[in-house]
Structure formats: C-alpha cells, structure tokens
C-alpha cells in the first residue's frame, strides 16, 4: 500500500451534522456492505469514541454532544474498494465546530490546522437546514406585520441595542469567509475541491428537488461564491445527506425496518441517489 496521498478536511458550524455523519460513515466503512464505498484502512485511538456514536446511530438515538467525550481531533485513513493504492486521510479537527468562530473572530488558527490546510485535497463543508442563520432587515418585519413597529413614535435608544459581533453574521457569510481564508493559505498550491453537504436532507427533500436548489434558494451568497470562482478552476459539488434516514420519531418504523442499517442512509447528488455515505470523499479523490 502506498502512503496517504490525499487529505480531506471535514468541517462545519456547531450542530451541522458532522457527528451523525461520522457515526454512519464509520458503520459503512466497518461493515463494507455498500457497493463501491470506501473501506477503512487505518484508525487511531478514536475507535472507542466512534464505536460509541455508531452504537447510538444503530439504535436510532440522538447522538449527544458532550464535549469531554469528544477527542480533540479525529482522523481515519480510507482506501478505495477497487484495490487501487489510493489512501485518503479524513481529518476532523473540531467535531463540535466551535473553533471556526474563534478563527474568524481572532484571525488566527493553529499551526497544526494550517499544516493540514496546506496539504489537503479538499474540504467537506457541512450545513444543517435547521441551523442556518439568516439576516432579516428591520424593514422586512415592518412590512410583514404592519404596525408592529410604530416608526413615528419608536425611539431608537442605545439601551438594549446589540453591538455588532461575529455571532450576528449570517451562516453563509461565515462559510464564505472560512473558504476565503482556506484559499488564502494556499495561493501557491492547487485550488481545493469543495463538497457542500446539506445534512438532515430528509427534512427538506420534499420541498426541494435537489440539494443544489436548496443551497441556491437558502444560501445564494455562498452558492454564487462557489460558482463564480476565478476561472472556474475550483470544483465544487453539493450533496444532500441524511445519515439518519429520516426523523428518529416520526420515521422510526421506516429507519428501523431496514434490513441493513446502511440502507437507511440517503445520499443525493447530481440527480443520483444512493446509500454510499463515502460518495463525497470519493468525489474529492476523483478530482486528482
């Protein structure tokens, strides 16, 4: 087997679905029961944690976010199922996703993180439809509910007014800025490939034909940024991912009734649907 050739960074804000994705991914890698999916080549000391979250996933339980249980960094080496020598290292530097706001606010990140950014092939960026912060103008509230704000008598007082802070920045703007910083650290390197993973896809799949359309409709700023990259050199692709396969309560019968647990996973991209949760990683590997 050759050495690790590719690096893929898995990142996203808090509650964007990274943990559930990892739990389902670990199951698929270990079981090797999804045709064409990547296989597990090597795993470090994170096995105990991955087993725990995988067991929650198999039991169709919510996966908790207890900080002390989460290793500071997760990594695993995956290999293609077609017996090629290509090994990809999947790295999750911050599973909770709380570091990224700090990076954006303080304009610095750890050397170790930077080292991986400079050698990675691509990034998988997570968004959860229920946790996308959007901006709303005061004007929009006025026009939606006339009289809610009596503009003639309302006085703008400083007490109770929120000063600007990073916590008020819309999700899509933060993601654009994160991508800009990643690219800034790689101006002398080939452009990265960006996989945008819309998690809990089952929650919105009925309303949007494709994950691409969901992104275009809900995060147009990010969508345009990805499409308008200079020279079109950077590949990007949107994936709708449902690692749970449905709502844990409302769809319980459906997701517990699958013969193979892997069959409840939904991966939707480019008009295709499968159970192969490794598809986004394989797509990045295909870019080389």
């Amino acid at each position, binding site marked *: 087997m050759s050495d690790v050739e590719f690096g893929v960074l898995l990142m996203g804000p808090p509650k964007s679905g990274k943990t559930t994705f990892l739990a389902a991914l670990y199951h698929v890698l270990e079981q090797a029961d999804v045709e064409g999916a990547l296989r597990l080549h090597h795993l470090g000391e994170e096995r105990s944690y991955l087993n725990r979250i995988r067991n929650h996933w198999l039991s169709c339980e919510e996966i908790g976010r207890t900080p002390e249980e989460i290793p500071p960094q997760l990594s695993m080496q995956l290999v293609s199922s077609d017996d090629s020598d290509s090994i990809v290292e999947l790295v999750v530097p911050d599973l909770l996703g709380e570091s990224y706001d700090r*990076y*954006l606010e303080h*304009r*610095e*990140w*750890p*050397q170790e*993180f*930077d080292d991986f950014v400079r050698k990675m092939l691509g990034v998988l960026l997570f968004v959860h439809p229920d946790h996308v912060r959007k*901006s*709303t*103008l*005061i*004007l*929009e*509230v*006025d*026009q939606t509910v*006339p009289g809610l*704000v009596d*503009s003639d008598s*309302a*006085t*703008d007082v400083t007490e*109770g*007014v*929120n000063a*600007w802070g990073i916590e*008020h*920045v*819309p999700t*899509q*703007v933060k993601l*654009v*800025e994160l991508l*800009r*910083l990643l690219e*800034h*650290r790689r101006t002398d390197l080939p452009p990265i490939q960006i996989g945008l993973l819309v998690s809990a896809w089952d929650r919105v799949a009925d309303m949007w034909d494709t994950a691409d359309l969901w992104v*275009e409709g809900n995060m*147009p*700023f990010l*969508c*345009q*940024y990805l*499409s*308008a*990259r*200079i020279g*079109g050199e950077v590949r990007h692709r949107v994936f709708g991912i449902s690692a749970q396969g449905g709502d844990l309560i409302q769809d319980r019968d459906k997701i517990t009734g699958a013969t193979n647990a892997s069959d409840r996973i939904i991966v939707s991209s480019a008009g295709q649907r499968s159970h192969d949760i490794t598809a986004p990683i394989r797509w990045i590997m295909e870019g080389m």
Partner: protein
Amino acid sequence: MTVSLPGAEPLTIQQANQIARRTPVNVVAVFGPVKSGKTTLIAMIYDSLQRGDLTCCEFAGSDTLWGFERLCHNLRIASNRTVQDMQHTPRADSYQFLHLRVRDPLNDRRYEFLFPDITGELFEEALDSTEDTESLSIIRRADQISLLADGEKLVSPIARQRARADIDTFIRSCLEVGVMDRSSIIQIVVTKSDLLPEENDDRFAEVSEFLQNFENDVTSKYRDRVGSLQFLRVAALPKAPSSLGAGHGIAQLIEGWLRSTKTTDGTPDPLLRPESDREFDSFQWRVATKPRQDV
C-alpha cells in the same frame, strides 16, 4: 503556535493599492451631501447580493466582509433595534475602502470594485472652497462617480432648489479644477425615491416637472464635458409603507457600473504611484495618473 490570517475589515489605502497592483480595479465613489444615503446604498448593495436578489451580477468574493456586515447590522433585527439606523460616516484621517468582486453571468467576466468611505462633509466643504474641491483626489481617481441627490429634499419645495444647486455647483467646481473631466463616468442618483410622489398624488406633476427640469439642465450643461452622464433613482431602504421593495433601483445602478468598467483580465492600474507608499499623507496622496479614456 498559531498562523495569522488576513482581516475582513475595510482596507487602508495601502491595502487597496495592493489589490489594484495585481488586478484591474474599479474605484466607485459613492458621494453626496450628509444624510443623502451613501452608506445605506452600499449596505443595501451588499444585502441584495447576499440575498441573491440581483440578476445583473453575482457575488464572487470580498476581502472586507466584516466591513459590509458592520454596515448592515443596524438595519437588521439582529441589532435589536426597532428603527433602522445608518450611522453617519465620520471624518477620518484617511480613506478606507470596501472591496467587492462580482461576476457578470452573461459573459462570465469578473470585476473588482473598491468603494472608498467618503464622508458627506467633504462634499459640503467642496461647495465652499476650491482648495477643498482640489483635495478630492478620490474623485479624480474614481472610475465611476455616483453622485447622490437626496430624494427627500428634492420633494420639498423649500429644500429642493438648494439640493439641485448643490449638485450643479459641485460638478462645475470639479470640472473647473480638473477633479472631473471628459473621462469622468458620472451617475446622478436620486436616493430615497420611495418618498417621491406616485401618480395618484397631487404633487406628482409638480415634482416630476422639477426632476425633469433638473435632469435636462444638468445634461445640457455638462454632458459634453464629461465621459458619460446617467440619471437613476433608487430606494435602497424604503420607509414603510411603500410599494417599492428594499434595494429598488440597485440593479440599474450596478448595470451602469458594469457597462463602463474594467474586467479582471485587463491591465492593473494602481491607486498610488510607487513612492506614495512611503509618503502617504491622508487625503493628499499622490494619485497615480488615471489613463484618459477616449470619449
């Protein structure tokens, strides 16, 4: 050990010049009297892009996203305000710039824009002083000049004549001292057009006649002395109730910029001559000679 990352706040002149050195940029001077809506207009351009409301162009990047976000904050419910409020642009020791890259979906070209942060006080000082007009080096360097006329004043029978005269005086003064010339691309932008009377209003005919007269007068006086002259109306942030939505007119404004704008595949045109990096002095920087445009 940590690695430092670039900021996302407005650029200094030196930082803006670094961009201008490596790629063609379009300096768009959005300028006008105090409270004419300059900052609101720029904020709503950004907000419109963020919402994907514009078909004339798409967002392709910015080095100053936090600068834009700060502008918009007091217009959003996140500020916990009940009344939208745009803070006055204070006088500063030097210009700062907001940066925006857009893509024209029709031809797939990219355009870099720099928006200098110009306080309205400089406009008013320029009306009274030739020296102050001459010091507006940013207008001389600007590739596009969007000169704002406050719609709220143009509606008022008392205030409108002064507002009109100020625009006229400003253009004339700029031409006389060479801050504007036959290469200048100028838009006269009537802001707050949601306050202009609609057709069913008794004042409609009177105000329409005044505005047409204003437009004809400025055109006849200055059209042959500048590169191009365009009149637009915007309602960046209409006051409720209004039939106009937020960002009304912004698409036309940007389309005007794109029609006479350098793309990123052209020749870079720095903001500063090389020696200015060492001798920068607030507004009196030595502006690199702007290539004259054939008109």
